[in-house]
């Protein structure tokens, strides 16, 4: 029954009309891709411009962790390098990222008495990824993460203050930046890139890759002076890439049409934790030039976000510490529906199946013990977290059946007493207490799109692969635009390692390409 409800909602006529444009775009893509699938490389040949407006050895698309790492390495290997960014600011998702960098066997781990190895990280990545990870890519990240972290310290001057834990890892191995933000790394990458002479071009959007008759990527058409998201803005220009183009353009969590083609549940009813420029047109442009994509429907949702906040917000910092201490209910019934300590994917799927936001709640004991004060204060101020003097008030505020809800709290409390959930198998932590102490705190939960695991197929040298399983000459990619590293699930803090490791590999290899002109 529940499944039927969801289906009806996501294929409403309104949504059908909204996605019709996206479907048309994909249809166009498919038709241009078909000849390539049967191995006709010449299909990708473009009419090249008579005159190129600008020429560089290596052109990088995207100014996040991966793109900047690639640009720096290519420049240091002797190439002339330009880096394009379609947005008016640098950094993409990297500059709003939480700043946790996963690496095994580091100095900070030793100082904290943590035993770890690349092998153990590899195993954790594969298990979380449901063994859909391309093993040599996961292995490359695991083996090079430590070196990548040390490069950001010794070469860029980044500082890491604290070792953090993320679900799914066997040990603490997330190195938290000193300002708890990815900006510590991406801003220092940008400063270094500028210092060594990488040309940075903001508001410059990739429109189309240009290939020669052998399918080699030779340059691209761009829009300069582009004003996101208005595609009528910007002046067309042609940029020649003598050696290679590197795509570090990120994922497509904010691209409703593209994500909905791959996972039809992800309608515009779902927000995203990403920056608004996290759209898929650069990825699709690569596909149109013969690049293969993989695992595009593995899209990670955060089950801890509030529909009343924009972006990531404060509610994740309220919800996550409360699981195992308080209850999550469906306001329609007043009853629990899924184990609160389930993983990201299980919980997000369960809430989507409800078809309406869930409510997470805790009493004063749990909230004061578990939730950091600044998150509670921020959430209360913006209204996403609410405070109630009684369970009756809480139930009424969310239109819940009061008696059913109070019965459910009493039932949960009996589980909390004996540390065992007979209904749904939630882990109840040993210092948890029955939910009885007023005031009570609650927030609504509705998943947001967080990370796209799928993307372009690459090999361990960061070369983008075509439909003939051979590298596309002159095209490299790194970071979230690629697929296969994480398989079904990306573990927290592995994104930074992925981006820096493959960004550096792409940059070094691109600079080593033989120039075509």
């Amino acid at each position, binding site marked *: 029954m529940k499944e039927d409800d969801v289906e009806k909602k996501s294929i409403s*006529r309104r949504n059908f*009309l909204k996605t019709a444009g996206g479907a048309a775009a994909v249809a166009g893509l498919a038709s241009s891709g078909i000849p390539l699938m049967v191995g006709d490389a010449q299909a990708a040949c473009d009419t090249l411009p008579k005159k190129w407006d600008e020429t560089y050895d290596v052109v990088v698309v995207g100014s996040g962790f991966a793109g900047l790492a690639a640009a720096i390495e290519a420049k240091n290997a002797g190439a002339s390098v330009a880096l394009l960014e379609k947005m*008016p*600011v640098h*950094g993409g998702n990297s*500059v*709003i990222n939480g700043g946790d960098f996963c690496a095994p066997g580091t100095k900070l781990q030793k100082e904290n008495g943590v035993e770890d190895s690349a092998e153990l990280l590899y195993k954790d990545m594969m298990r979380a990824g449901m063994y859909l990870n391309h093993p040599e890519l996961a292995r490359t990240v695991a083996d090079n993460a430590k070196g990548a972290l040390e490069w950001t310290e010794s070469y860029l001057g980044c500082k890491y203050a604290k070792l953090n834990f993320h679900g799914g890892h066997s040990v603490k191995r997330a190195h938290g930046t000193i*300002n*708890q*933000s990815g*900006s510590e790394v991406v*801003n220092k990458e940008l400063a270094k890139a500028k210092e060594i002479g990488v040309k940075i071009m903001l508001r410059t959007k990739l429109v189309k890759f240009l290939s020669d008759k052998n399918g080699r990527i030779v340059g691209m058409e761009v829009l300069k*002076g582009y004003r996101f998201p208005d595609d*009528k803005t910007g002046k067309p220009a042609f940029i020649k890439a003598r050696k290679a183009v590197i795509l570090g353009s990120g994922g497509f969590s904010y691209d409703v049409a593209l994500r909905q083609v791959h996972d039809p549940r992800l309608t515009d009813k779902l927000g995203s934790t990403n*920056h*608004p420029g996290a759209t898929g047109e650069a990825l699709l442009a690569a596909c149109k030039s013969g690049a293969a994509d993989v695992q595009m429907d593995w899209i990670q949702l955060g089950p801890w976000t509030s529909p009343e*906040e*924009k*972006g*990531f917000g404060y509610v994740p910092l309220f919800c996550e510490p409360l699981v195992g201490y308080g209850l999550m209910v469906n306001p329609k019934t007043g009853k629990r529906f899924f184990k609160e300590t389930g993983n990201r994917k299980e919980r997000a799927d369960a809430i989507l199946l409800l078809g309406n936001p869930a409510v997470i709640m805790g009493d004063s004991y749990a909230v004061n013990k578990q939730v950091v004060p600044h998150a509670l204060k921020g959430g209360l*101020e*913006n209204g996403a977290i609410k405070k109630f003097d009684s369970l009756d008030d809480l139930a009424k505020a969310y239109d819940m059946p009061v008696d059913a809800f109070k019965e459910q709290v009493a039932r949960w409390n009996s589980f909390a007493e004996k540390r065992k959930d007979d209904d749904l198998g939630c882990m109840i932590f040993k210092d948890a207490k029955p939910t009885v102490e007023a005031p009570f705190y609650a927030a609504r939960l509705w998943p947001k799109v967080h990370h796209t695991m799928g993307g372009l197929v690459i090999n361990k040298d960061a070369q983008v692969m075509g439909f003939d399983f051979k590298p596309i000459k002159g095209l490299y990619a790194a970071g979230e635009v690629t697929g296969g590293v994480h398989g079904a699930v990306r573990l927290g803090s592995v994104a930074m390692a992925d981006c820096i490791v493959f960004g550096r590999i792409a940059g070094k290899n691109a600079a080593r390409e033989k120039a075509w002109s």
Partner: protein
Amino acid sequence: MEKRKKNLKIAAVLFGAVLLVAVSSGLWAAPKLAVSKAKPGDCAACHVDKKALPETHPDTKTMDIKACRACHASGEMSLSGKFPGSHAHMLSGVNCAACHGKTKQPEEVPMEKCVACHGSTAKLAEKTKDVKPTNPHTSPHYGTELDCNLCHKQHAKSENYCAQCHKFDYKVP
């Protein structure tokens, strides 16, 4: 039955699209202007095709920037957001060329130009450190170096750039 409904919908969408193209191409057809010679009160020198100010607005002929600021001030009953930055600059004696240089094809002004007159971004952030809910001139993401023009637009409505991810309710002059 269902099919007819769908056809109607599609027709409506197509009509909407045609309308949109018609309207937006009308906007593009703005004439060349002698902006730098315009005097206060002579709105029509630039705003040729429609009235720039409401009927009830006081006559601006004799006004200088101080007179504008009498109403367009920051504060509780703020009108500051309705006063375009380019006009504030012009009326304060900062003409087009001061920012764009002497050129027939003015280009986007880099942030360094703003800082050259208005002072360092660090000082500005210090000045606004008590603004609620949080200081708009520094952030964990960009420090104090987010481009001024992303919020304080000179030739378009100013924008709260933070608001694309945050619920910060700033009034942006």
